[in-house]
């Protein structure tokens, strides 16, 4: 197993290399650069000055090699959006916040979703099941900025019991240092969709597996419904669930621009969009690295989990019979 993991980590490096090359080329191929004129045309010389200052007057391949050289020394450059700091520092600061929301959202949505989904499957076709199914649909349909907007409107403006935004503001701590009311609305808004997703997949998987032979065997053996569902069915439902829901984790950990801008959260999410639109090359590259890393690790984990859950699954480069 450890050699497998080691091999996977090596391939992750290859993936990072390929992604960086593709992204770098794409970045420079897209029309419009970071320092284009906003209003009036700049004199040729002035434009050239700006480009030279940022090293953008060199041929693209040279810029790429230069950039990668710095990356290997863990120097990711300076973001054009905030030139007084470095990319590493900016990401470290903002990702901390985003990861925090992401983790809370994952915790809430997955645990609730699993619980609700299993309940629905257990009481299949009852009113509870139908309610859950319908609710999950709704939760999936509503875009999270719509949910955020109405949450703010109801809880912040009308009822005035929760803050409309900010992050860990000193006035908003419920249990200082431990829990802030700033966190409630954003996490709720963010968790609705993944919660629905988890509930739905859980239900579907569990329902399907409840029909399996081993269920009848277990029933014949005299095990109670709860044990069956809890122990056996869930375990077998897990593999497709992990495949479907695993990807949610990196998604949630990289944040949502909508949630973060609606609730004034100084996180990483907005940089995905603003960096692209402002052609902030260093930030774009750094974000791509992060995403690639996160996903690579997630895929590695889920593949490893397959074997752990179902020992019959065999992996590895020579995984086939």
């Amino acid at each position: 197993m450890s050699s497998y993991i080691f091999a996977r980590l090596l391939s992750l490096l290859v993936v990072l290399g390929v992604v960086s090359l593709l992204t770098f080329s794409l970045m420079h191929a897209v029309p419009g650069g970071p320092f284009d004129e906003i209003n009036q045309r700049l004199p040729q010389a002035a434009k050239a000055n700006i480009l030279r200052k940022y090293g953008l007057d060199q041929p693209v391949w040279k810029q790429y090699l230069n950039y990668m050289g710095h990356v290997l020394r863990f120097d990711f450059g300076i973001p054009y959006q905030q030139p007084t700091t470095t990319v590493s520092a900016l990401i470290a600061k903002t990702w901390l916040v985003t990861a925090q929301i992401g983790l809370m959202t994952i915790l809430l949505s997955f645990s609730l979703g699993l619980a609700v989904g299993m309940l629905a499957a257990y009481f299949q076709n009852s009113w509870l099941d139908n309610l859950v199914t319908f609710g999950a649909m709704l939760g999936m349909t509503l875009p999270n900025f719509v949910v955020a907007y109405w949450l703010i409107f109801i809880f912040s403006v009308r009822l005035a019991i929760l803050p409309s935004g900010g992050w860990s503001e000193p006035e908003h701590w419920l249990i200082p240092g431990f829990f802030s009311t700033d966190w409630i609305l954003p996490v709720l808004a963010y968790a609705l969709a993944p919660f629905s997703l988890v509930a739905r997949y859980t239900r579907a998987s569990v329902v399907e597996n409840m029909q399996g032979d081993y269920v009848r065997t277990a029933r014949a053996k005299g095990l109670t419904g709860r044990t069956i569902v809890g122990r056996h069915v869930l375990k077998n439902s897990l593999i497709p669930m992990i495949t479907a829901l695993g990807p949610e984790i990196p998604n949630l950990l990289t944040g949502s621009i909508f949630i973060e801008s609606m609730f004034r959260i100084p996180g990483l999410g907005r940089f995905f969009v603003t960096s692209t639109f402002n052609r902030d090359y260093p930030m774009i590259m750094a974000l791509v690295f992060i995403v690639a890393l996160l996903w690579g690790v997630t895929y590695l984990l889920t593949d490893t989990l397959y074997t752990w859950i179902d020992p019959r699954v065999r992996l590895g480069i020579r995984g086939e019979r």
Partner: protein
Amino acid sequence: MSGTRSRHTTGRIVFLLILALILVACDGGKSPAIELSGVVKESTPVATTGEAETAAVDPYLTIYGDRLPEDAAPYELQIYKEACDISGNHITFDFQVSVYQPFCLANLFQDQLVSLDKDFKVTPASAERWEVSEDGLTWTFHIKPGLQWSDGTPLTAHDWEATYQLIANPDHGWDFAWFYTGVLKNWDEIIAGELPPGELGVKAVDDLTLQIITQRPWPPLPAMMQFSYVLQKKALQKHGPLYNSNVATSVSAGPFMLDVLEPGQRIELVANPHYRGYRPPRLQRLIAEYRSPDTFFLAFQNGEVDRVQSNWLSPADYSIIQSDPTLSANYLRHFGDFRTDYLLFDTYNPPFNDMNVRKALAHAVDREAIVSNVFGEIKAMPAYSFLMPGFPASDTEDKLMQYQSYDCDRAKDYLAQAGYPDGQGFPKLEMWLRNEPPAMQAVYQAVAASIQQCLNITIEVSNKDFKAYMDALNAKPTGLKFGAVSYGMDYLDPANMLGIWVSTGRHAWKNEEFERLVNEAAGITDDPVRRKALFQEAERILVENVGGIFLAHRWQGDILQPYLRGDSIRSPDSQGIAGWHWGNDWVWGNIYISKDVVNRNTYRTK
């Protein structure tokens, strides 16, 4: 697997925990732990302790010893809060570092040489007076004595000299470098790296005298000095141009100093006790909080911000404002930067190289109906020419209306003359927009629909990525075939507005007579009547030749809290318009919070 059961239980526990917390939050609605946002900040400024004692003596005195107006709230409540766009690209407080990427509450750490009053007339600021030499080439600005930076260093002409040399320096890469092209002596050569920055025509004769030398006689120069934001020479040498982005190295000669800078969260400025300039502020603290623009007006209604500008107000917000008498009375609109919306084309290639086609489209836009119903009369007025009535040399008598008036029959005639009777054979057009918000998208779609329905041609509207649009627009030859855009003035002179239409600018249109007129008029120093006449004729050519199709002039404005007061915003200008005028820097020294903030639910009340 026991893990699954515990997960089940864990899920329940977490759920109950959260439920409990929400219930607790409901109960503690009135408790200080859960407030909407912000509490009253400490009233003492960051400065020395001496002032704190003075403030305690008379709560209505500012730190400068001035008495607040009769109806003002106590000094400790003189806090102003703004909303800042969290999705914006902000890198500096200083114009001379970047014009298009400023932090909120920018440029308050200094006073320029001059400022503008409510009628856009140039008034003294850091300079008390100025004169121009006989040959019109040398302007001498006399700086008011006694001005200083917050570290005690005097503010002198050397600071301006150093700042201008900075922005001319090729290594600095200033994004506004076009502004002084053809104006300041040696500017073009220095930008191109042919001469050192020391050769620039901005010289400190002594501590209080600054000389500005132009390439040719240029009457609008004092107006252009509204942009003469200054940086401290000492700090530039020690810390570089971004010295204001750090509280430790920031230094101010303006009414406010930097107190808190957290990009993406908040910015706080505090009244500068060392300030000696012309606009000592009545406010003691300015706060800008980063928010999503969708929530600006919501925050305003919630009492969390004191002002929202018109470009952040959505159509629904306007609807709410207009149906509420108090809100309507506190929405103050003004000229802003005389911004005009218009359509532009590539006139060097078909189909727009045929003037008949351009005329056809110009007469096919029902501006009145679109402005009344789609744009909104509170936000705009129909435009038939480029300069908004109220701007110098603008068409205030509707003399230019005939060239682009709405007349569908005439439009059809022109199109037929161009060889496309009833729109037959006319290519499908794609109108490009420059990343416009929904309200403007609606306006341009209405324009497209108007043309489409009158001329029986097909027009699609495409809201492009900002950078891609500008890239296409500025390319030579242009990549933009047909698009919509707006422009607002940089300084109050037709040389500026009309100047963007010369063929070296961003428009794919050329008319030699037009260029000749604009060039000649710009340099006239002694004959204002003739100058105006030449500009008017130039504009007539622009409109008649349909260099662009002019759609609307924008009214800008702000929705202000009723307790935000001050003559600078509440008293009308000579045209009867009250509002937070563009370029009127005195506002920051004049506005204050009135007494009736105490009875309202704002971030100031406990």
